[in-house]
């Protein structure tokens, strides 16, 4: 048993490509080693910004030999009359790779046949790896690949070195024109020279001595610990940013950290501006005080252990000072004009070639928001809403948002607040882009909710109207996320708003802007929203997919009502009664498929079970109305459940499709009435009998 080591040295691999590079390398090697017949072999993949490393433990030196028994032609044709081997015998021996005198015979019930025992010698692991590694590395794919030098090779970055050791021996192989050897290099600053790796087990240790930590998990640990230490020394804590720390782990060979100072005057800027400036331009962590306010200190991750002359800290402090000064310049420039004044520029900001400027879009969104507010009976001034629709988009024109698009909304909120706008307005500007899909809170104020909803409905309706409909993974305008946000806002605002109507109103608002029949666009938008509503019930509310389908089949426009109905059904969907009702309701639906509206005539009942069902259905219908009116859907489904046994008895004892047409039609009429009442709550036939796991 030996260990195998692979180290592929490259120029800096992008941080976002490394996790998948490790996955691909691991999967490729694992698959190849398993296919070579080695079981239970442990493979570990590690990396730094400059190298991909694989270690394989306890690899046998060669494959086990494999014996194969081959059957050949019948003996009678294998030898001639003189007992000499014929062409058939010789051919078989050749195929088996043995000489004719090594052939054996084998008796079967069909007669005697030639046979051969072939021993396939196991291949040496070194040989297998020599083929496997170049194939695996050569098949790795990255989002952005490149050529270099003369252009013969294609990888994520140029390759400069290859170490392949099985135990203490180099495994001969070539990857992208680079021959395998045992020479590698230490950290670019701390130990830049070449050195030889004695054997496969030594790399991690040898590199650690030369300033490189090859294990990403270890680098993460070191970073977290050191960051906490440095923060504690300053009496602060790190403003949490897990994604940024994870990125830094991939960006270095050694995870060094230093703490630097920020001129406290920059903390007068909105905290989002400070954090964004540090994060996006400098990838720096910021420290915060106990109360969550920002501290005038940052942490920079550096790819070295130390800062011997303090130059790295000085440099980072200077750059961050310059970046923050730049941000403050933008902030002050932006504040020289009122938002009202800025907003005039929205006419020149194009949203879409056909759908017009952002100003035109804001006109439509404002009108839609005002119409919805009226429908909901909200105490909001229509003109103020129309104006607000423009103001919440105005920050798109400001220097700060042009520089940091991710601060859209946030800056509008600050600028409006600072110029004394009403809280309802500035919070709406801040919040109306929230939530992102299903993630995050809905806006705090009615104005924020209405504008967020109207803006997105206009986006969806408009883009559907011009044929920009998401397909598969192609959703360049983020319409699915927009629709998810629409659903979440509608469902969680506590409004009795019919989303289908609201979407229809958005389509109507685009009359004259988009061609094509509005009804067709409305139908497409409605189906699109329905898909998001189902997902909302399933992923956010936590209702099973079949229960979501069942309740949506009974209507879904009013999402808070739908949600209550879905939760009520989901709570009882696996009960015996509901399962039984689900099956029975399938029969009801089949039988009543062709039926029109007819009246039940109790005089035509022949059996007690019919009368019993009729009475129970009447009671149900009676109570259903009360429950639905008061949104007591738990009670409604409990009432429905009471019909399970009655309906079962009915189907056991009563033959609906009897010969007498009048009696038959009357029975169908009874079931039709039942079906109609059931369908005000849910289509139980969509419940999966096995419990509907997804």
């Amino acid at each position: 048993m030996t260990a195998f080591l692979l180290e592929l040295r490259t120029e800096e691999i992008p941080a976002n490509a490394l996790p998948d590079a490790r996955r691909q390398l691991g999967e490729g090697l694992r698959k190849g080693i398993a296919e070579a017949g080695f079981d239970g072999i442990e493979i570990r993949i590690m990396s730094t910004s400059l190298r991909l490393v694989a270690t394989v433990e306890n690899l046998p030196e060669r494959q086990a030999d494999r014996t194969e028994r081959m059957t050949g032609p019948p003996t009678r044709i294998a030898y001639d009359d003189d007992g000499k081997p014929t062409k058939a015998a010789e051919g078989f021996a050749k195929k088996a790779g043995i000489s004719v005198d090594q052939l054996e015979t084998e008796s079967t019930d069909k007669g005697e046949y030639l046979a051969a025992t072939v021993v396939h010698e196991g291949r040496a692991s070194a040989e297998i790896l020599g083929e496997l590694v170049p194939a695996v590395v050569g098949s790795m794919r990255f989002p952005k690949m490149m050529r270099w030098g003369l252009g013969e090779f294609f990888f994520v970055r140029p390759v400069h070195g290859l170490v392949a050791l099985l135990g203490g021996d180099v495994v001969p192989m070539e990857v992208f024109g680079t021959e395998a050897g045992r020479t590698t290099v230490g950290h670019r600053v701390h130990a830049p020279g070449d050195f030889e790796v004695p054997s496969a087990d030594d790399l991690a240790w040898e590199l650690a001595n030369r300033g490189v930590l090859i294990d990403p998990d270890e680098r993460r640990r070191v970073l977290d610990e050191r960051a906490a230490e440095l923060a504690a020394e300053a009496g602060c804590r790190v403003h949490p940013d897990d994604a940024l720390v994870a990125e830094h782990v991939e960006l270095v060979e050694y995870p060094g950290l230093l703490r630097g100072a920020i001129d406290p005057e920059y903390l007068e800027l909105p905290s989002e501006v400070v954090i964004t400036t540090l994060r996006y331009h400098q990838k720096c962590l910021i420290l915060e005080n106990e109360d969550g306010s920002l501290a005038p200190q940052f942490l920079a991750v550096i790819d070295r252990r130390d800062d011997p002359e303090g130059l790295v800290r000085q440099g980072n402090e200077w750059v961050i000072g310059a970046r923050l000064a730049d941000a403050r310049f933008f902030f002050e420039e932006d504040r020289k004009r009122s938002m009202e004044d800025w907003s005039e520029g929205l006419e020149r900001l194009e949203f879409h070639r056909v759908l017009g400027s952002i100003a035109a879009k804001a006109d439509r969104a404002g009108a839609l928001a005002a119409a919805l507010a009226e429908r909901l009976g909200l105490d909001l001034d229509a003109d103020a809403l129309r104006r607000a629709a423009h103001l919440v988009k105005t920050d798109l024109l400001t220097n700060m948002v042009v520089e940091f698009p991710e601060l859209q909304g946030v800056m509008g909120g600050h600028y409006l607040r600072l110029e004394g706008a009403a809280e309802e307005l500035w919070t709406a500007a801040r919040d109306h882009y929230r939530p992102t899909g299903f993630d995050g809170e809905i806006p705090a104020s009615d104005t924020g909710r209405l504008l967020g909803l109207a803006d997105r409905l206009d986006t969806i309706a408009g883009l559907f109207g011009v044929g920009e409909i998401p397909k598969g993974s192609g959703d360049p305008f983020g319409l699915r996320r927009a629709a998810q946000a629409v659903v979440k806002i509608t469902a969680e605002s506590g409004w009795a708003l019919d989303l289908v109507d609201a979407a229809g109103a958005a389509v109507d608002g685009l009359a004259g802007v988009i061609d094509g029949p509005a009804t067709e666009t409305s139908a497409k938008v409605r189906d699109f929203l329905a898909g998001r509503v189902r997902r909302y019930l399933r992923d956010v509310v936590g209702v099973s997919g079949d229960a979501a389908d069942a309740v949506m089949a009974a209507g879904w426009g009013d999402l808070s009502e739908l949600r209550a109905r879905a939760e009520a059904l989901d709570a009882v969907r696996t009960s015996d009664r509901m399962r039984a009702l689900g099956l029975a309701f399938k029969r009801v639906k089949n039988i009543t498929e062709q039926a029109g509206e007819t009246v039940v005539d109790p005089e035509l009942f022949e059996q007690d079970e019919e009368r019993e069902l009729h009475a129970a259905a009447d009671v149900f219908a009676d109570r259903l109305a009360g429950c639905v009116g008061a949104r007591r859907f738990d009670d409604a489904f409990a009432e429905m459940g009471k019909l399970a046994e009655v309906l079962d008895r009915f189907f056991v004892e009563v033959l609906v499709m009897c010969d007498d047409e009048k009696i038959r039609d009357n029975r169908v009429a009874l079931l039709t009435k039942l079906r109609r009442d059931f369908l005000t709550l849910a289509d139980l036939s969509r419940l999966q009998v096995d419990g509907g796991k997804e």
Partner: protein
Amino acid sequence: MDLQTLILNLQHFWAEHGCVIQQPLDLEVGAGTMHPETFLRVLGPEPYRVAYVQPSRRPADARYGENPFRLGRHLQLQVILKPSPDDVQGLFLRSLEALGIDPAVHDIRFEEDNWESPTLGAWGVGWQVLLDGMEVTQFTYFQQAGGIELAPISAELTYGLERIAMFLGRKDSIYDIEWGGGVPYGKIRLMDERESSTYGFEVADVEMLRRHMEDWEAEARRCLDHDPPLVIPAVEATLKTSHLFNLMDARGAVSVTERVGLIARVRKNAIRAAKAYVTQREELGHPLGNALEEVD
């Protein structure tokens, strides 16, 4: 180190490493990449090494001389190494030493930053090089130019000279850096930045720009239709259209939709010129040699 010493040291360093020291293109361009010494030389199999300073005009980035970090016209020092040598990163690090930057006491990082120029039909893969957190150079392996897949691949190094000078001198404003002989940058350039901003944002005659863009686009086409095609004149006419587009854009006269169309028009001529250049060099028998054949 003042600005001119920075330039002289870099030019000296790259001359010692086999670069032709070229002069700036005498036309308005947005980046050193647009100089035919880059845009055309990266095409085809001929090996080439060149370095030059290129004043780069970006009218939309101008700030009336009021923003201490942003300029409407800045200086790039552009290096092309074709084919990209194996130790190109090491060479680059040594060039920093020529600026008095000792990598042993700094944090120098190569962080992914890919480059694309829709107007030139060009893209590349690479990094921004950060020195103690400051972006000092753009490092790109050219993959495509003029819509043509490249082989051999060129490495392009673009040093942002004012930024480096600011950083090394720890100056809080570009205008405070020393150009040379004790003369500050601001005394030489500030008025120019102010006037160019006023011109670019307020005064430039959009109708005239549009007209001239049409004219130079047609002229580029005429050069390309000529038999044989006149490559350099076509590129120069195309670069003029590109700059006129940038001026119109800074004036806010280009809508998002129109932008795509205008860029496509510039690109079309750039791509034709690139193809014509490749043919021309083939017909000339690749006077500078053939890197792909030398290996065989």
